[in-house]
């Protein structure tokens, strides 16, 4: 349980930390340190296993179907990285306490920092490659947020976006690479993958997998040609740079190479890709660092260079080189983190990072200067400091490469050259900043030492530099051994951690680098002049140009596909449906199934013919809207007849009453709308649409024909058998609605209610003035509510209500029920509105339809929930027979209450919709007072 705890703790801390923000910076810094301290304590007991080369695996199943396990694995390598992340993390938290201003959003800062820390720990402790990738992407996201922490600055936002684009893109490549590896090995578990190195390297897909994985590692670790994002990420607050861009984030790519070293390394392809990339990065970073006037810019390019050095070491492929690489990871993290923090202190105290202005700080801040000078010397590779040791190992390894002929000279020369640059830029960091005359025009003058504890983290790290440099075997020996053991996946070669190995070739290279570097620094003005002759490539401009080209491209693509025209979307939808359905339909081949066709009777055929004519007529006459509407209503009526014809009396009644309401609705809408449609479509457009609709029609005909003639079995026998004994009703359709499938019905009336309320909301406070006449110049009739209609409509109401009550009550046994009765009542009420006007009717109805809908839903729910009280599931119905006088024996089912809810909801929803539309017109309100009088 301890390993996932180590990963999860920082995330929990990220939730908790902002709560302490109220208590000030000290409180939140202390709270944020707690997860790391607990994590360190949790890792400690495992040391005994790891020091002898063992591993600890803790695994839980997650998504076994796709090979993701919640699995964590600790060995020497992951321990080394976890310690770097945790210890430097705590130091950064302390440092940031003084770096951030009290007015800044410290809660957000610490929360993000902890999220990042958790993600990094996730990468190094994952025992499953896919799980690792999830954390990998999390570091990209959290680092994006950290780099853009000062999001009011455009440069910070752009730098963050660049970092995210590059590392996120690399993450995608890595995902592809991991999937290939997983396919080759048959498992994503790290143990399996590491054991299957030979299998992977022999596989045909190995070059692809290796390239993709290396793309992920190179982008993350800022290797050439992806190095450009790192210097631009320096817009981040300095604690972020010190943490992400020295010790953690950029080391994730290095970690990946170390982690998969047994699985992927040792081939020629690996050698050329990794070592040449590393070499190029080493040289370019070191060269550019020399010419940066920005303190953090210098450190950033030096980081690029050192990352190249580590990559080159891994690329060499020898075991000793891998040991040196792991060793340099430790050393670089310590001296570079302290240098970043020192740079942050200088920025903090002087207000600038421009080395042309900050000079001679020795006089103002000797304490900080001493610390920075030791760390910079370590970066340069001065003996007795840790940077020297790994650099010596690097020089020694560069001589050991078995390259043919003259090529063998290249690695040592490149190494020495990079060493010269490193000495030169380190000398510049020391001399320019702390000596070299007086400060020039500082924003904050005079600078002085920072708060005591802001220097404390730097002191710790510088102390570590010296300890490792002087007593390497004692201070770092066991940790390095266990990490190297894990990296190599077994035997560790003999190596000696001594301060000095005697007077040999590597030492000569070091001396040459020193002398050369100091000469170069003393002659720096010439180099600056030389460098100034070249036009500097602005990576940001190039990157922005590439990005904006992609954005334009995708905008054009989107604009082509999505031009804002609903017609286009509808067309695309129809085309895709036809395309999807066409294939299986064509494969079907035969459209008349085993049951064959039954004979046609004349009345049905004539009705069908009329329906088809009217349907086509509606489409043909659609520009004459009123005519089209009349034809449409004929279609609706024949559909009702069709239901009656084919043994569905309930459906026929429903369709009939819905038809009335629909036509009233459309007539109402037409009152406000233009009564004819202008001719807009071109002939070609109409031809296209006709072809599409014919294709759809033919398709539906064939599908229907194929379905109708297929033999089939239905689950309906159950309903037919149980309707009477189980539901107490003989009308099976109604029993299904209110009993068997009552839950569905409840959902459906809820939809009805929502639609009606949506209509009400959409039309509230909307005014529409209808056109003065019918479009052909005829004014509307002045007699809005004809006397005859009024006189007939009023006595109709009680009659209609009685019929609907009858239909409602008999519904359980004979065609009828809540839906139909509700629609009949609605029609009767709508008739009153039409005959007598809005206000007149509304005054007499005396309740709101909203309430009616609510009441209906309440009834339906109560009827359903009632069964819960008796210990039955929701919507279990019960029934009994009682004897009424006159009527006789009568069945009462609890489902009747449910049906009552349906009834009320249907009335409420229908009328709310229609009344909302009717109320739109200003006339309905003006006319009615006259009506009343």
């Amino acid at each position: 349980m301890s390993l996932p705890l180590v990963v999860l703790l920082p995330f929990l801390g990220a939730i908790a930390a902002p709560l302490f923000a109220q208590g000030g910076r000290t409180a939140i810094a202390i709270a944020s340190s707690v997860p790391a301290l607990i994590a360190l304590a949790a890792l400690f007991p495992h040391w005994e296993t790891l020091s002898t080369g063992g591993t600890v695996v803790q695994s839980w199943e997650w998504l076994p179907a796709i090979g993701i396990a919640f699995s964590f694995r600790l060995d020497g390598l992951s321990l080394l990285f976890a310690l770097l992340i945790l210890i430097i993390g705590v130091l950064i938290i302390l440092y940031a306490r003084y770096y951030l201003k009290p007015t800044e959003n410290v809660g957000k800062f610490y929360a993000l920092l902890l999220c990042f820390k958790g993600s990094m720990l996730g990468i190094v402790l994952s025992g499953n490659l896919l799980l690792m990738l999830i954390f990998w992407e999390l570091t990209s996201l959290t680092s994006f947020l950290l780099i853009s922490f000062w999001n009011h600055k455009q440069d910070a936002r752009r730098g963050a976006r660049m970092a995210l684009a590059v590392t996120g893109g690399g993450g995608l490549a890595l995902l592809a690479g991991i999937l290939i590896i997983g396919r080759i090995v048959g498992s994503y578990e790290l143990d399996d993958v590491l054991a299957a190195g030979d299998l992977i390297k022999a596989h045909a897909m190995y070059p692809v997998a290796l390239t993709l994985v290396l793309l992920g590692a190179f982008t993350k670790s800022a290797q050439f040609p992806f190095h450009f994002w790192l210097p631009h990420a320096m817009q981040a607050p300095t604690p972020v740079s010190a943490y992400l861009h020295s010790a953690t984030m950029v080391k994730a790519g290095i970690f990946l190479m170390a982690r998969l070293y047994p699985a992927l390394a040792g081939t020629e392809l690996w050698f050329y890709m990794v070592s040449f990339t590393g070499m190029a990065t080493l040289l370019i970073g070191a060269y550019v660092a020399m010419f940066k006037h920005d303190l953090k810019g210098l450190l950033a390019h030096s980081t690029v260079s050192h990352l190249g050095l580590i990559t080159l070491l891994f690329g060499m492929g020898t075991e000793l080189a891998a040991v040196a690489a792991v060793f340099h990871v430790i050393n670089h993290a310590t001296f570079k983190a302290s240098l970043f923090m020192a740079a942050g202190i200088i920025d903090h105290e002087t207000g600038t990072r421009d080395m042309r202005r900050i000079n001679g700080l020795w006089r103002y801040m000797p304490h900080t200067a001493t610390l920075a000078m030791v760390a910079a010397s370590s970066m340069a590779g001065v003996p007795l400091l840790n940077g020297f040791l790994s650099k010596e190992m690097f020089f020694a390894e560069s001589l050991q490469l078995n390259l043919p002929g003259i090529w063998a000279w290249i690695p040592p020369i490149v190494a020495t050259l990079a060493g010269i640059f490193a000495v030169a830029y380190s000398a510049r960091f020391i001399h320019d900043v702390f000596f070299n005359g007086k400060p020039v025009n500082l924003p904050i003058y005079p600078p002085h030492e920072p708060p005591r504890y802001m220097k404390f983290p730097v002191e710790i790290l510088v102390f570590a530099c010296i300890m490792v440099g002087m007593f390497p075997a004692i201070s770092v020996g066991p940790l390095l051994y266990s990490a190297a053991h894990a990296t190599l996946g077994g035997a560790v070669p003999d190596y000696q951690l001594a301060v000095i190995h005697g007077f040999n070739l590597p030492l000569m290279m070091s001396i040459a680098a020193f002398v050369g570097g100091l000469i170069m620094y003393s002659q720096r003005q010439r180099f600056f002049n030389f460098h100034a002759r070249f036009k500097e490539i602005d990576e940001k401009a190039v990157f922005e140009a590439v990005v904006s080209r992609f954005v334009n491209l995708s905008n054009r693509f989107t604009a082509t596909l999505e031009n804002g025209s609903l017609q286009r979307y509808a067309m695309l939808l129809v085309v895709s449906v036809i395309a999807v359905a066409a294939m299986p339909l064509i494969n079907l081949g035969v459209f008349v199934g085993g049951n064959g066709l039954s004979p046609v009777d004349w009345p049905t055929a004539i009705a069908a013919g009329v329906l088809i004519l009217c349907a086509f007529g509606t489409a043909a006459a659609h520009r004459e809207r009123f005519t089209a509407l009349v034809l449409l209503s004929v279609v609706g009526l024949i559909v009702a007849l069709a239901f009656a014809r084919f043994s569905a009396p309930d459906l026929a009644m429903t369709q009939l009453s819905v038809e009335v309401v629909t036509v009233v609705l459309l007539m109402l809408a037409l009152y406000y709308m233009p009564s004819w449609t202008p001719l807009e479509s071109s002939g070609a457009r109409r031809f296209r649409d006709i072809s599409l609709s014919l294709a759809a029609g033919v398709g539906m005909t064939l599908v229907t024909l194929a379905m109708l003639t297929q033999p089939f079995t239905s689950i309906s026998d159950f309903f037919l058998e149980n309707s009477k004994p189980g539901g107490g009703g003989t009308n099976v359709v109604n029993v299904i609605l209110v009993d068997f499938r009552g839950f569905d019905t409840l959902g459906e009336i809820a939809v009805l209610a929502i639609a009606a309320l949506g209509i009400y909301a959409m039309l509230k406070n909307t005014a529409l003035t209808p056109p003065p006449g019918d479009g052909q110049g005829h004014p509307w009739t002045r007699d809005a509510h004809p006397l005859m209609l009024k006189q007939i409509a009023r006595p109709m109401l009680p009659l209609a209500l009685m019929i609907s009550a009858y239909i409602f009550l008999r519904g359980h046994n004979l065609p009828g029920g809540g839906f139909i009765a509700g629609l009949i009542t609605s029609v009767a009420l709508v008739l009153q509105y039409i005959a007598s006007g809005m206000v007149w009717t509304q005054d007499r109805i005396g309740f709101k339809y909203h309430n009616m809908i609510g009441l209906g839903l309440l009834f339906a729910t109560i009827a359903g929930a009632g069964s819960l009280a008796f210990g039955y599931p929701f919507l279990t119905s019960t029934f009994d027979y009682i004897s009424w006088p006159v009527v006789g024996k009568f069945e009462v089912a609890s489902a009747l209450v449910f049906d009552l809810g349906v009834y009320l909801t249907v009335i409420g929803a229908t009328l709310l919709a229609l009344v909302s539309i009717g109320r739109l017109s200003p006339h309905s309100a003006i006319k009615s007072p006259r009506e009343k009088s």
Partner: protein
Amino acid sequence: MELVYALVIGALTASGVYLLLRARTFPVVMGLTLLSYGVNLFLFSSGRLSTGQQPIIGSTTAYSDPLPQALVLTAIVIGFAMTAFVVVLSLRNLADNNDDHVDGARPESATRGKQDEEVSDK
């Protein structure tokens, strides 16, 4: 009989789709109505066509399939609710844009961003 029934559904679909592709809201609403007739008839017929076999226990000897009927019954009512909603949507479009084009008043994509801003300002 099956062929006639299938032709009816085909005719409803074809004219429904044609109207669906028109540029003004009212024809589109009519198209949707025709389409829902077609769909309801199609769903209903998945219980196969039968004559005089209404699913009322005791009224006949054989019964048609009641399940599609129950489903279609609610589909008819919900179809009405949907039609009403779309009608109101088009009325609101008419009120806001003074136009009954399906793309609103300004279909050209160049002014779309501006229009969105105005809407969100409200």
